[in-house]
C-alpha cells in the first residue's frame, strides 16, 4: 500500500524500558497485532534516555518511542494508534476499528485511561516513591478506587471495554490496575477491589492476563518495578 514511508513492510524499532508502563502498552499492541519489531532497550535507571543518540529519536527523552524508516514517534497512545492505522490486517481492524463511531469509543477510552492512571497514582505514587523519596498514600484508596467504577461502567456485562471485541482501549485501561496489583499488598488489593466495580474489573483483568502474550510482555517488567518500589519503601 502507498509508497515510501507508508509501507507496512518496514520493521518497527521499539525504544523502550520493559519496566515502563506506557512502553508495555505499546509492546502489548505489537504483540496483539502479531507484528515483528526490533527491540531497542533504553535503560531508564542508567540514564540512557538522556543520551544524545536517544534524544535524536525522541527529543522529549522519554520512552517509549518508535522508529519506522525515517519516521520517529513518541507518546504511547499515538504510537498504538499509528501501529494499527498502518496495518491492514484483520487484527489491526479489530484492535482499532475504522468505523467512525466505533473508533470514537476507543479514542474516548484511550483518554479515559489517563484518568484511570492518575487516580491509581494518588495512592501508589509510583514516581515520587521511586524517584523522589516519597511515600505511597494508602489513605487515598477510596479516591483511587473511583477508577474501578469508571471502567466497570463501560464494561457492564461485556468482555471488553468497548463491547464484545478487544481493542487497544483494553490494553491502556487495564495497565494501571496491573501496576496497582504489583505495587500493593494482598490485603490492600482485597480492600481495593471490594469497592464498586471491583469484581467486574477483576474478571476483565483475568481475561487480559490470559492473553498468550501477556506474561511475555509484562511479567518481568512488573516484577522489576515492584522490586525497585519496595526497596525504596524500606
Amino acid at each position, binding site marked *: 500500500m*502507498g509508497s515510501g*514511508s*507508508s509501507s507496512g513492510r518496514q520493521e518497527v524499532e521499539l525504544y523502550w524500558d520493559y519496566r515502563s508502563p506506557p512502553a508495555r502498552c505499546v509492546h502489548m499492541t505489537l504483540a496483539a497485532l502479531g507484528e515483528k519489531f526490533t527491540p531497542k532497550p533504553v535503560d531508564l535507571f542508567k540514564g540512557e534516555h538522556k543520551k544524545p543518540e536517544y534524544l535524536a529519536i525522541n*527529543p522529549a527523552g522519554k520512552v517509549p518511542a518508535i522508529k519506522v524508516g525515517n*519516521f520517529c*514517534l*513518541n*507518546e504511547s*497512545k*499515538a*504510537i498504538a*494508534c*499509528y501501529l494499527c*492505522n*498502518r496495518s491492514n490486517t484483520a487484527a489491526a481492524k479489530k484492535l482499532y476499528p*475504522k*468505523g*467512525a*463511531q*466505533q*473508533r*470514537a*469509543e476507543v*479514542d*474516548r477510552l484511550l*483518554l*479515559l485511561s489517563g*484518568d484511570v492512571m492518575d487516580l491509581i497514582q494518588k495512592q501508589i505514587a509510583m514516581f515520587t516513591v521511586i524517584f523522589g523519596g516519597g511515600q505511597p498514600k494508602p489513605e487515598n484508596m477510596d479516591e483511587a478506587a473511583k477508577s474501578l467504577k*469508571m471502567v466497570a*461502567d*463501560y464494561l*457492564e456485562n461485556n468482555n471488553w471495554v468497548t463491547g464484545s471485541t478487544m481493542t487497544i482501549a483494553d490494553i491502556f485501561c487495564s495497565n494501571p490496575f496491573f501496576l496497582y496489583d504489583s505495587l500493593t499488598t494482598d490485603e490492600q488489593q482485597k480492600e481495593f477491589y471490594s469497592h464498586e466495580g471491583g469484581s467486574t474489573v477483576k474478571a476483565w483483568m483475568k481475561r487480559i492476563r490470559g492473553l498468550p502474550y501477556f506474561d511475555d510482555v509484562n511479567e518481568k517488567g512488573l516484577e522489576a518495578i515492584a522490586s525497585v518500589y519496595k526497596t525504596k519503601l524500606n
Partner: protein
Amino acid sequence: MGSKPSVARKDQDITSPAASSDPVEFYWDPVSPPSRCVHMTLKGLGEKFVAKKLDLFKGESKTPEFLKINPAGKVPAIKCGDFTMSESRAIACYLCNKYNTPTSNKLYPKDPEGRATVDRILLLSDEINNDIMKQVNLLGVMFQGQRPDEGQISEAAKGLKMCAEMLGDNRFVAGNNVTIADYFVATPFILYDLLTEEGVQRRFYKHDGGDTVTAWMERVRALPYYDEIHKDANEKLGGLYRSRLEQF
C-alpha cells in the same frame, strides 16, 4: 469525566461522503475552552451543524435532558442521531472521521504518519495547557476564589517552548496545513493573551520560542472562522475572569 454514553449504533457507511443525514447537534458554552476547539473543528469542516448553547453558570449542563446526552454534565458534547460523544479531542477526531471529505482529510490526515503527528500533538496539547494554567489558573480563579500566579511565568513558558518545537519551520503545528491539532494547541495561548496584562505578555513572549509561536498565532487568528468563534466568547470569559479577580 468517564461516564458511559448511550450505546453506539451500527456504523454508517463511511466510504461515501457525508453519509449521515442527521446534522450534528453541538452542545457548548463559549466560556468553555475545549468547546471552542470543537467549534473550530465544526467550522473548519464546513459541515452543517446545530449549535445548542448552554449557560454553564445557569446550570444548563446539569438538566435531565442534557445529562441524557452527557451523564458527566460537561461541555462540549455532540449528538448525532442516537450517538452521543463527550471529550473534546475524541469529538474532533470523530467528526473528521465521520465526514471523510477532502477538507476533513486535511484537518485530520488519513496517512498513518500524518495522522500520528496530529494524534501526538493532541495528547501533548494537554501538557501545554497545564503549563499555561500554572500561571493563568483559569479554573482556580473562576471557581475557587484563587488568583493567577505571575511567579509561574517560566513554567508557563515551557508551553511556549514545546509549541515552538512542534512548529519548527512549519506554518502550522503538524505541517504546512491547518489541522485539528492547531485548534487545541492555540486555545491556551488565546486564553493567555486574553487573561494577562500587556506587560506580562511581553515578558512571556520574550521566552524561548516566543517569536515562532507569535507568528503562528497570527496565522491562526487569520482563519476565516476565528473571530466568529472567539470574539464574543473572549469578551464574556475575559469579563467574568476580571470580575472574579475584583471580587476576591
